[in-house]
């Protein structure tokens, strides 16, 4: 049992560290003195930085070499992330594209798609967004209603609405799940598409959250025309393709545990700044309980890495770490605000944004309830709940739902 690098990993780390030492001055400054504040400038500076990281082999580490990656394992990617954090510089802008959508295209895309899209994605020249969730299809993702109809010439017409779309406002492309055959069962009539975000009929609208900021978007599709070659992974295979993306999402979350900055020492620091709070036994009790769970998640991450290193793919139980992080951070924010008082909620406080952000994060990447269902069924082997949608064509499902309500 050890947390040490293998000789190969150590060599990789040294290389990454040496490059960062030489180039970290070129990284955009996002906080503190001299920070860029203009939104558009931030995006373009981060895109340029992503290009440099990709050029140096610090992005897309797990991608095959033929698509511009390094052909290395997830551990080497984690080493890169650790060194980036240590150097105090931002990582890539398009973590969703490079971490989840690119690998999906590598797994299911055509040779033409791989040749056309992967390079510019990796280098930050074209940012991507994930167009899966809809107002009525979140936890039950296979209920997507965005409709794609094929014309006689083989081209497609898409109409519908997507939501929770991170980065859509500056994305070039999106990976989009749409219903192509409503007469099939809900999981069968789905198809995955690549959609240019500047196509006529695409409208992106920011969605403001509790913090007041708009990190997500709504994306409206009004008779958007796509060519035949926009299909990824074959017509009717959209669900399988989406599952690949979600698997990479789990890997990303499993490895990125503390990347959100919800770590125990930071929270302890918040409490320790109050002379009374740091000595109060009730406060310490709560801090100790919260921090213990967050510490556990760090080592759960190492266990996940060990499994990946052995070629195993993280299962749904990785979702438990997300539940722990989110609920731990919620309790920590609450405790810190109790200790520091209303000042903790001021806009310039270190904690206000986190406190506002977390209630939404509870539902991100699958609600806590759906995660617990999945884990209960797949990990503990408990029987599923009876479903009303089994074996029924999607087109008939809506009326059945209406009757049950």
């Amino acid at each position, binding site marked *: 049992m050890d947390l040490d690098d293998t000789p190969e990993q150590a060599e990789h780390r040294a290389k990454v560290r040496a490059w960062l030492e030489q180039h970290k001055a070129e990284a955009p400054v996002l906080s503190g003195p001299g920070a860029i504040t203009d939104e558009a400038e931030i995006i373009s500076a981060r895109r340029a930085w992503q290009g440099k990281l990709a050029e140096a082999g610090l992005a897309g580490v797990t991608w095959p070499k033929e698509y511009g990656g390094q052909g290395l394992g997830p551990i080497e990617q984690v080493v890169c992330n650790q060194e980036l954090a240590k150097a105090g510089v931002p990582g890539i802008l398009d973590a969703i594209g490079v971490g989840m959508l690119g690998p999906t295209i590598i797994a299911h895309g055509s040779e033409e798609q791989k040749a056309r899209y992967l390079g510019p994605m990796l280098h930050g020249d074209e940012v991507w967004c994930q167009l899966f969730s809809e107002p009525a299809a979140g936890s039950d993702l296979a209920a997507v209603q965005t409709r794609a109809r094929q014309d006689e010439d083989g081209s497609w017409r898409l109409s519908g609405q997507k939501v929770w779309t991170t980065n859509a406002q500056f994305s070039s492309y999106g990976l989009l799940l749409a219903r192509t055959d409503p007469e099939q069962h809900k999981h069968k009539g789905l198809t995955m598409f690549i959609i240019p975000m500047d196509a006529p009929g695409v409208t992106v609208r920011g969605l403001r959250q509790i913090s007041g900021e708009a990190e997500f978007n709504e994306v409206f599709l009004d008779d958007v025309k796509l060519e035949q070659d926009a299909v990824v992974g074959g017509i009717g295979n959209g669900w399988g393709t989406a599952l690949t993306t979600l698997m990479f999402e789990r890997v990303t979350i499993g490895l990125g545990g503390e990347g959100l900055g919800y770590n125990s020492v930071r929270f302890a620091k918040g409490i320790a700044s109050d002379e009374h709070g740091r*000595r109060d036994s009730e406060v310490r009790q709560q801090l100790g309980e919260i921090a*213990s769970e967050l510490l556990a998640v760090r080592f759960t991450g190492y266990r996940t890495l060990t499994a990946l290193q052995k070629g195993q793919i993280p299962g749904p139980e990785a979702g438990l770490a997300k539940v722990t992080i989110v609920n731990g951070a919620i309790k920590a924010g609450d405790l810190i605000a109790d200790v520091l008082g209303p000042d903790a909620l001021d806009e310039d406080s270190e904690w206000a944004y986190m406190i506002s952000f977390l209630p939404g994060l509870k539902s991100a990447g699958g609600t806590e309830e759906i995660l617990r269902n999945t884990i209960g069924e797949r990990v503990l082997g408990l*029987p599923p709940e009876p479903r009303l949608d089994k074996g029924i064509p999607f087109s008939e499902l809506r009326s059945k739902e209406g009757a049950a309500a």
Partner: protein
Amino acid sequence: MNLALSDEQEFLREAARGTLSRFKTLEAAREALDDPQSRLPDLWPTAREAGWPGLLIDEAHGGAGLDVFDAMLVLGECGRVLAGVPLLGHLPATAILADAPRVAEYLPALASGERRAAYLPSQPPSDLDPRWSADPAGGSERSPLPTGSAPDANGEVKLSGGYAFVPDAPGANALVGVALVDGEPTGVVIMADADGVQVESVRRYDATRSLAHVTLKDAAATVLDAPVDSLASAWYLAQALIAAESLGSVETALEVSVAYAKERFTFGRAIGSYQAVKHSLTEVLRQLENGRSLLYYAGWSRNGAPSEFPLAASAARSVAGRALDHGARTMISVHGGIGATWEHDAPLYFRRAQLSRRLLGGTAAASDRVAGELIAQADAA
């Protein structure tokens, strides 16, 4: 990066499970509650055959020279079946003695299990309390450690004072802990049969747990040359071991509950299909997995990052103690009324949970220690 069990560790765990399965530990636990005269199976000869007494003693002194994580695996297996193997007392005691070269001649008999030791729980100072302390026999105020004046030329000292709720002290040959000798925290070993030593067995809520109040009245003790870090480390080792033992019990509580949730039907459906039941069982799994990860942290840090061992072991204890409480309560509620009766094993796990959480300083103190360690880290950052 390697945070998985080695083949040897898998084997150690499987062997422990196989060995303990030969005993009807749960039946014995129930009988022991009914009949104060009934005896729990003596598992020490079995432990000796398996080589567990010498787990933490090096091979040169007849031990297995293994690591705390290996010891935690064995304790986890004991916890699964509520087996009263007196390792929780013995192993931290041997860890102190292994760091005290002057008494190295004691080690071979302790490694073979020919003689048995018990650790006198001695809690190191914290950021808020500069004193060492012992568990009190009652109430919430910590007890001062026993004291003695300066040792004589042979390193002998007379100690007076007490340690309450000492795990596995009944029947132990040697008692090992910390006392204030001439005002300084000092490692000591006391022979249980020496004059002035009283080991009073206390049978409590969980009859599988062997405990005693140890009282010293001018009792002869030998001063150890173990460094003070080793004395503190023994406390955290005990925290890690009871955490591992608790998580073993959670494993059983979860497995039994899940099996029942699959076979018990209400309103035409298995109860495990209801979200209310499913989610409470995944909550037990979540706490169990967090606890397991912290056992790895504790196991790794004892040698890999010794300054973090207090944090890691305390965090493991904090999570494991709560996991066992929650796991035992869920075990009862999933089973419905029957889970709260003598017919079922659930009450035995519940009793184990409630007593375990109050021993060795208690789960709450472990959480407080986590906060203290992190506040110190935050101050230093």
